[in-house]
């Protein structure tokens, strides 16, 4: 009996330690980034583009990368939504009763979700070569769009599934077409769409491997889709590789900016998801 109790106690302590390590690693990461990044943080970092000699430690900031990232993540999210809302509606409204097909479709999107971003990057690069595009904002947006479509479809799909079937049936029985019913459903899931937007934006803004081949890098803020665009994660990556201490410091500060942006996005989407599930009927 004592042996069993001891085993129980021992394993419980192990579990608590494991939980502390898993949850603690989050604080360790954020703590490291904050403590290293804050000393190098300045208003110039977020308000200026790189000046002359920026990469040997002189004047400037990473505004080019911040704007570039916003463009890429924003553009990809908009494009992604335009594609994935119809897909999610199609799976849920037009294929009702065909469980075999919807199961396959959902599995395919899950699988696509698991494909690493470097493969999307390489594939985006192939598309660009095929169409004769050079590294540009457009190329980055295309690669990141491919990356976020599975995420968007699966999130929207989950959200649409929470809409009660009665609502659909009511709309349909009043004589509305499937598309009109879909509009009713879309209105119902508006917070869910916001969640999907946030998730997709968060994934898009933080990803490196997909934009590495496709978006290029530039010290200027892109003014058209065909110009190369810097992105924040890539700026961090490049600056960290510099032997100049000042530039490495900027990598820490850029990492801090990215961490804060992503944390805000994640917290917002968490809150939205909670709210949404509370109103679920």
């Amino acid at each position: 009996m004592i042996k069993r109790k001891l085993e129980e106690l021992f394993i419980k302590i192990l579990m608590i330690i494991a939980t502390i390590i898993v949850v603690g690693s989050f604080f360790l990461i954020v703590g490291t980034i904050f403590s290293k990044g804050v000393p190098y943080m300045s208003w110039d970092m977020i308000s200026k583009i790189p000046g002359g000699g920026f990469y040997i430690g002189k004047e400037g900031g990473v505004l080019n990368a911040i704007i570039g990232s916003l463009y890429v993540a924003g553009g990809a999210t908009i494009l992604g939504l335009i594609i994935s809302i119809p897909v999610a509606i199609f799976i849920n409204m037009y294929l009702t009763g065909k469980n075999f097909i919807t199961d396959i479709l959902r599995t395919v999107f899950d699988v696509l979700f698991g494909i690493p971003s470097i493969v999307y990057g390489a594939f985006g690069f192939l598309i660009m070569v095929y169409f004769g595009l050079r590294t540009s904002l457009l190329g980055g947006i295309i690669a990141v769009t491919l990356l976020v479509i599975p995420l968007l479809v699966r999130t929207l799909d989950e959200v649409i599934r929470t809409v009660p079937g009665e609502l659909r049936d009511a709309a349909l029985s009043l004589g509305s077409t499937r598309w009109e019913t879909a509009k009713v459903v879309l209105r119902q899931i508006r917070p869910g769409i916001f969640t999907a937007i946030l998730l997709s934006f968060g994934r898009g803004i933080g990803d490196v491997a997909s934009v590495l081949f496709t978006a290029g890098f530039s010290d200027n803020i892109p003014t058209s889709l065909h110009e190369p665009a810097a992105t924040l994660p890539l700026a961090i990556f490049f600056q960290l590789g510099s032997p100049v201490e000042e530039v490495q410091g900027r990598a820490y500060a850029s990492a801090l900016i990215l961490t804060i942006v992503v944390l805000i996005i994640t917290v917002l989407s968490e809150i939205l998801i909670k709210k949404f599930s509370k109103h679920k009927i």
Partner: protein
Amino acid sequence: MLVFTLASVSLVIIIGIGLYYRSIPVLNNSSWGQLLSSSVWKPMKGLFGFYPFIMGTLWVTAISIIIALPLCLLTSFYLSEYAHTRIKRVLIPFVNLLSGIPPVIFGVWGVLFIVPFVQNQIAPHFVEFSTGYSVLAGGLVLAVMIFPLIVSIVNEVLNTIPQELKDASLALGATKWETIKKVTIRKALPGIVAATVLAISRAFGETIAVLMVCGNNAIVPHSVFDAGYPLPALIANNYGEMMSIPLYDSALMFAALLLFIIILLFNVISRIILNRLERNLAG
């Protein structure tokens, strides 16, 4: 809608075909077997041996799973069987936040924290000298990256296990741990396997964070303190020069194709298991 759906679903096939098409030149030059088993990497001479890179990938993936799996299983059991609802409500959001952190931040953290940690705290006990940039550092960073994935999936799987089963075991006088050991784990095993396979495929494809801490040396690692050079890092690192050397771009696309095939297989297997679990629950 049909068009969009078909287009995005067929992406799986199109990516595969596209990558294969671009790998044909290097496949004409040497066979699959040669590419996979040779360790000579001399792009200038047209020799592309992927063996060191495949081994590099396997090392970091294995290390990360060995570290992450026990920790995550214990955490999931704690969260779903022991922890008070209030504690759960506080802790789970942090796991979700961890999953939102971008790979490059993990990389920066790896350089700032894990690499010095390996160099100064772990390595001196085992080897004479290590820079810290090693497959162990890569594995550690990856382990933290896959924490949220394993914990959230295993948690969901554990939630599908009927309370009556556990109650029956507890009512017979088994302790909570005995119930987990003899009832819950057995019932949750397919789900745990699926989560592990998913985590492996995530670790396999992770690029930038690993690239930053792994040392990127094209040799087959012999100990955890050796530098390694995983496949995704190879693709990402050499993109700049790949257009100037013949066959190089084709070889890199072959690397991407390899990753794609392996990860596709792993994902399909684990998703089929998970979907079956979900359907059993619904049915």
